[in-house]
């Protein structure tokens, strides 16, 4: 029992990260029924956006006031990527068979990874390190350094940042969707795009907003992951994206609360599996197996996800 709360904290931290990314999958799916497999790369580019902002303007400094500016840099990079992606790759395929945008998404994902891997150190006017290896992420005062001890439980400062970021983002997101005109437009489009269009809602614009919204949260997640693991690399989006997608399905795809809940559950299961599964099938290498076993069980016994999918399948 001694390590239960420690692993719970670890799990919730990891889960918060998954949740932030998972919201992006679920929002886009809710509106256009598209699994945007390149969303992991939006997350990765967010982290690189934050790093670039730091290297360009604040290299060597450690003040915590840099963090908000890095987050803004991350958000700009992510949103530009996501919106461009929607415009170039998905909009032309809006009415194509479902398989086409799915394959395109995988293509975009590979394209963005390779783009960062090959060209990050060749960006003119900037002296960026090569992205072919892991790059150390700047460690700032206040959000890194000595951990906080609560009883037996050690809580890293970056973990506090991640969980706080999820809470703030979730509240803002709830407000945006339920209390603003644009947000209610999104709800309408997700329920019935054709009727929504008849009611005067600009569906194309709503879709762009959905992509941008997911990108903002992914950018925050990118910064969180950088602070937590103190390094980023070009393929960080693949595993994180896969896990977040799992979290979205676990909670019920299309359902925002579900994505957050699914992310937290997934994170906690991974941590607990590392600690409590004994013997040969335990430990760090098997935690993913247990996480996906959970996914399979949920899909078998509750295919709509833990909190239920919110989308009427058009097919």
């Amino acid at each position, binding site marked *: 029992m001694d*390590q239960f709360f*420690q692993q719970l904290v*670890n799990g919730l931290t990891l889960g918060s990260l998954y949740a932030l990314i998972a919201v992006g999958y679920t929002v886009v799916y809710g509106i256009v029924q598209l699994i945007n497999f390149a969303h992991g790369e939006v997350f990765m580019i967010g982290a690189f956006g934050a790093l670039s902002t730091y290297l360009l303007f604040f290299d060597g400094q450690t003040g915590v006031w840099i963090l908000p500016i890095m987050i803004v840099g991350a958000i700009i990079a992510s949103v530009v990527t996501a919106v461009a992606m929607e415009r170039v790759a998905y909009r032309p395929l809006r009415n194509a068979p479902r398989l086409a945008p799915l394959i395109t998404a995988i293509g975009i994902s590979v394209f963005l990874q390779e783009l960062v891997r090959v060209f990050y150190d060749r960006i003119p006017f900037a002296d960026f390190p090569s992205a072919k290896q892991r790059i150390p992420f700047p460690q700032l005062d206040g959000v890194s350094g000595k951990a906080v001890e609560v009883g037996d439980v050690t809580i890293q400062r970056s973990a506090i940042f991640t969980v706080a970021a999820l809470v703030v983002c979730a509240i803002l997101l709830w407000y945006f969707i339920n209390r603003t005109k644009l947000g209610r437009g999104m709800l309408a489009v997700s329920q019935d795009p054709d009727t929504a269009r008849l009611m005067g809602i600009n569906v194309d614009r709503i879709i762009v907003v959905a992509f941008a919204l997911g990108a903002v949260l992914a950018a925050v997640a990118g910064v969180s992951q950088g602070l937590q693991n103190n*390094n980023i690399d070009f393929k960080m989006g693949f595993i994180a994206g896969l896990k977040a997608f799992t979290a979205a399905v676990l909670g019920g795809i299309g359902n925002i609360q579900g994505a957050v809940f699914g992310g937290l559950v997934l994170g906690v299961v991974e941590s607990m599996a590392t600690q409590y599964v004994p013997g040969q099938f335990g430990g760090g*290498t098997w935690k993913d197996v247990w996480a996906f076993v959970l996914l399979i069980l949920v899909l078998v016994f509750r295919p709509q996800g833990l909190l239920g999918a919110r989308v009427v399948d058009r097919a």
Partner: protein
Amino acid sequence: MQQRSVVRVGASLIVASLALTACGSRSEDGGGGTATKTAKIGVIAPLSGDLSALGLGIQHSVELAVKQANDSNAIPGWKLEVDAKDDEAKPDVGKTAATSLSSDKDVIGVVGTLNSSVALQVQPVLAPKNIVQISPANTNPSLTQGANWQSAPKRAYPTYFRTCTTDAVQGPFAARYLFEKAGIKKVATIHDKKAYGQGLVGTFTEEFKAAGGQVVAAETINPEDSNYQAVISAVKPSAPQAVYYGGEYPQAGPLSQQMKAAGLNVPLMGGDGIYDPKFITLGGKTSTGDLATSVGAPVDTLESAKKFISDYNAAGFKDPYAAYGGYSYDAANAIINALKESLKDASDVESARPKTVEALGKVSFEGVTGKVAFDQYGDTTSKVLTVYKVAGGKWATELTQDLAKK
């Protein structure tokens, strides 16, 4: 960068080109009987990805050796070339690279690989063609002495040699250092389940227990992960005085940083896979006091390596020679020395291959890292190891010792 795609494209082109080269290239050298003939030394190493710092150091050091051999006309009538292939540190990619090299009739030897797990796939491809392979960095004992190296050592492939010592030496060396020199009685072990990490931790554990120490926790991580909090939390309550990690720096650096951020303030110790400047960059300030063992003596302190270092720097390579530069340079020179014997009156590369294998076994010269010679298994005869410690953002030499002499 380019190499990665070259390998990919190459894989699909090999099939097509095989048919063509069989008839095409023979007519090429038909005309030039008096001209210098070409022999290629292949390099298989990770030239992109996490471990590229080590891989590029290997490639450039081999290039340096080959350039010097060509300049001094070491093998009259022959010109040497380097053909470097990227293995991305992945066994399957390494196998493709080896296949592509072995189908080139000009390839006489290969320097590589970096990873033991890749070497396991490369050995069986090169061996039937009698192409010699010298690894500057493979430390898994089974590569030379077979799967049952502990009970019944048996040479696995007659074509395989290495210039570095093995985990059979490295793990115990670290165990003895921790137990005897650092006075640490309780350790936790973590490895990444690759052949290298598992071998290291296995031999370490055995020696540490034999010495009277206690292994209080044994965990594993997934090399694809970048967050190790869960594993760290699982290890922490057993209160180890040090963590012994079997794996490489891309995971070890963040692991060290996250360990200390989580309040587990004990040194992390590893093998030569973490002995790299990148470990300190990734581990951050808190990596001070972390330890690594590496094979041989530190290249930059050796009298014999001064010329290599100045030549390497003069050659203007973009990347540093890294941990294995000296061993790669020695490996390439070992092949070149063997070629002096085998290519002397050979008409073409393919017929000279078996003779090269034979000649390489007998090679003996003073290299950059000390005496270069091989025993009956293809292992280097040198058993010198060094413990390094992170101090002031750099790896500092802590202790150099010949394990055999104790």
